[in-house]
């Protein structure tokens, strides 16, 4: 019986690790005809640094890991299509599309070095802040954090001061100390990092989402018996994306309901005209992204088309 080590820097109780990944691991093990055991190492017990999760799998410290490419800018660069403003509308369709473009070979680079088990997108980030930021002009001079370079670019284009290098656990202190006035994020992160008490104003514009991956060491996968490989394949790829996206969207809707009910919170759905202002203000991020490398336009188009064909987009 082979034991696979699945590393996550999230604590065991957190939603993605404790629910989605734990259930996935159970299903795979159950389908493996007794050839596999998948042991989850939560809370960074195999590697504390969120930016180093990809290295863990590459070096064989872990066999499988959950990684956020945005923490390690320069790796899995093509995933940043997910970060572009006004593209991703929900996690389910975007995660499906992310797998589709990977499967069609449009990503290349680091993706071929690993056995990809799932390529996901978070639900779209919104503007979440301690002050009202309803129009792009409100952003001028405001310290603002985004979870990766592409979104930082979009933020910068509105006239805000982009702040990088703050990881999840430090967000509450950063908001509390006025180090940042706001961030682009979604409701699960708001819950996980205990920001509910601090954030008072939400502006629901799709500022781009956070790409996420579950990757496996390729040699390790190749070395497994056929029954194990088959079990992994059965629950990976499109099936994993579907399950991940659906659960994530549902969870975010639940939290949003709870946050909406708070007295001290304002959630603004901007008018058509305001949405256009945001779109214009951040469009430079998309233009820069498209211009940065050859072949990005076709990746963008394919990703958008795949999202559109998914039922969750209807």
């Amino acid at each position, binding site marked *: 019986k082979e034991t696979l080590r699945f590393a996550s820097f999230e604590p065991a109780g957190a939603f993605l690790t404790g629910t989605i990944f734990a259930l996935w691991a159970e299903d795979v093990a159950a389908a493996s005809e007794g050839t596999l055991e998948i042991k989850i190492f939560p809370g960074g017990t195999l590697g504390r640094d969120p930016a180093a999760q990809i290295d863990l799998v590459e070096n064989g410290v872990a066999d499988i890991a959950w990684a956020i490419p945005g923490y390690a800018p320069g790796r899995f660069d093509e995933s940043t299509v997910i970060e572009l403003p006004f593209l991703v509308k929900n996690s389910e369709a975007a995660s499906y599309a992310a797998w589709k473009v990977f499967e069609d070979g449009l990503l290349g680079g680091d993706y071929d070095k690993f056995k990809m088990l799932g390529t996901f997108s978070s639900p779209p980030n919104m503007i979440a802040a301690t002050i009202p930021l309803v129009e792009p002009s409100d952003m001028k001079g405001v310290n603002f954090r985004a979870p990766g*370079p592409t979104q930082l670019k979009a933020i910068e284009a509105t006239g805000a001061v*982009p702040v*990088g290098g*703050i990881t999840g656990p430090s967000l509450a202190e950063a908001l509390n100390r006025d180090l940042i006035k706001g961030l682009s994020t979604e409701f699960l992160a708001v819950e996980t990092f205990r920001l509910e008490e601090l954030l008072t104003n939400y502006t629901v514009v799709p500022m781009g989402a956070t790409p996420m991956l579950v990757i496996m060491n390729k040699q390790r996968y190749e070395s497994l018996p056929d029954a194990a490989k088959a079990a992994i394949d059965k629950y990976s790829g499109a099936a994993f994306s579907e399950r991940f996206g659906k659960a994530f969207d549902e969870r975010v809707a639940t939290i949003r309901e709870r946050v909406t009910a708070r007295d001290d919170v304002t959630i603004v759905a901007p008018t058509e005209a305001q949405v256009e202002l945001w779109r214009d203000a951040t469009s430079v991020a998309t233009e820069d992204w498209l211009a940065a490398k050859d072949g990005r336009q076709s990746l963008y188009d394919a990703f958008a088309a795949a999202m559109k064909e998914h039922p969750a987009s209807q």
Partner: protein
Amino acid sequence: MTLIEDRARAATRWLALIGFAGLLVLAIMTTLDVLMRWLFDNPIHGVNDVSAVVMAVVIASCIPANLEGRRNISVDVLGAMTGRRATRLLDAFGGFVTLLFIGAVAWQFIGYADSMYHSGRRTWVLALPLWPWWAAATAFLWFAALIQLANVIRDLHRTLTGGSDGHASPHPIRPDAADSLGHTES
């Protein structure tokens, strides 16, 4: 040969000083950033963008001096209970294991810096490449490994010849290490 070694040992101290002076500069930059944010609501762009890698280089630059002065937390109970010659033998052994450790770290860092270069890792805001910083850290670690090699050779020579050095301490912690933490109320 001894001249080169003496120069190298002196260089470790200068390297550490430069590194910690860099830390002071980082502290001054952070302070200015806080003041700008506080007084003018206008922070400096990208201050904490490079802090992480600068810190790594600062710490790496102090490691050679640390090994040169043999200043790592160790418990020398056994040596204190036995004789002077046994203490030396044990110190030499501890130094040798330390050499294995720092040598392995320096060796692994080559691959690490190399992967930083090839994977094109960059900082978040200013998109500066990370590899030059890690290359510098790697160089400092190699320097540290060489210093430790010199320590081990010195230890072996001392143990074999039984030459005097006045280093053996009557206490099971090293007073020089502890004392250097306090110091200089003049």
